[in-house]
């Protein structure tokens, strides 16, 4: 629920300068190691936007699996999402785990509810540059 609230809050903060608006769609990236279950997040999202101007806003979730990597053989392509290999299937060396920690707001779409003169902001897709994602959560 906290994550759904933060998604909504972040979108709404960026819409403050646009007058009355309706959020139509929000796209997020959720990693396998983020400890967020997509279906529960969808449910929480519906509860967060329920009964407000964004009640019909669709939450689009881009799932990002973790990767298992062998120092000698590279990424293990045969890894199945949700299952974990103990050793490299080719050389039997221990594997490293990489990625899958994404918990990112990627994009949203909105509709102004009244015709107002357009306000350019840093956050606007046509006027500003995206905030870089924090890469500090890299795996050991």
């Amino acid at each position, binding site marked *: 629920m*906290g*994550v759904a609230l*933060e*998604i909504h*809050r*972040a*979108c709404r903060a*960026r819409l403050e300068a646009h007058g009355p608006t309706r959020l*139509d769609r929000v796209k*997020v990236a959720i990693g*396998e*190691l*983020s*400890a*967020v*279950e997509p279906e529960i997040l969808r449910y929480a999202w519906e509860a967060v936007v329920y009964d407000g101007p964004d009640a019909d806003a669709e939450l689009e979730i881009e799932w990002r699996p*973790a990767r298992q990597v062998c120092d000698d053989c590279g990424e293990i392509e045969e890894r199945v999402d949700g*299952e*974990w*290999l*103990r050793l490299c299937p080719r050389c039997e060396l*221990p*594997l*490293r*785990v990489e990625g899958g920690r994404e*918990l*990112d*707001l*990627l*994009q*949203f*779409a*909105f*509709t*102004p*509810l*009244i*015709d107002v003169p357009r306000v350019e902001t840093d*956050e*606007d*897709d046509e006027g500003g540059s*995206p*905030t*870089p*994602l*924090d890469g500090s959560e890299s*795996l*050991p």
Partner: protein
Amino acid sequence: MSQAREVDVRQPILAANAAAADTLRERFAAAGTLVVNLISAPGSGKTTLLEVTVPRLRALGLRMAALEGDIATERDAERLRAAGIPAYQIVTGGTCHLDARLVSAGLDQAAFGPLDVLFIENVGNLVCPTSYDLGEDLKVALLSVTEGEDKPFKYPGIFARAEVTVVTKADLLPHVPFKLDEAQAQVRTLRPDGRWIVTSATTGQGIEEWCAELVARVQAKGATRG
């Protein structure tokens, strides 16, 4: 009505928490305080582990305090005060994890004074606390032998992040079907460089090893104090 517009954002969803956690980290670094974020399922023995840890570290002259996160009640903070350290209870009122803003507010309220170690006992939950940076030096995952040995693969997020996994209630191993080797292999898969410590608060097994791990980290933190 106007046409729909798209906005590229590309920022961490928990950016506000991350900023608050960075502020906490600076505060802890300046004070030379080691911060330990304890995360487990409810009933895994976080408070009990602290109850046996506190006397040993106090005997070494370390100054400690605890922030206790719980959905309701002051019980855990009372237990730790009885064990001899200042403890402040953060009652989250239904929220299933602590976040950096709650910790910051709790610290301001508690006014602990100078500390070598701050324990943050998170709300009993293996999912939600995983994603929230509290400005800690290390996350410690607790896994009791009365739980399933498949917990690490069921909750990979926390076991991949925890620098230390502490197995608790090891005195019960003869009486439960918990497969210690399997649990360890799962944790190693997710976190090859993590520490694995098997403990029992009842018999004292592993408690010295756990305390030595903390002491080494306190010394390392003190050495880097700005």
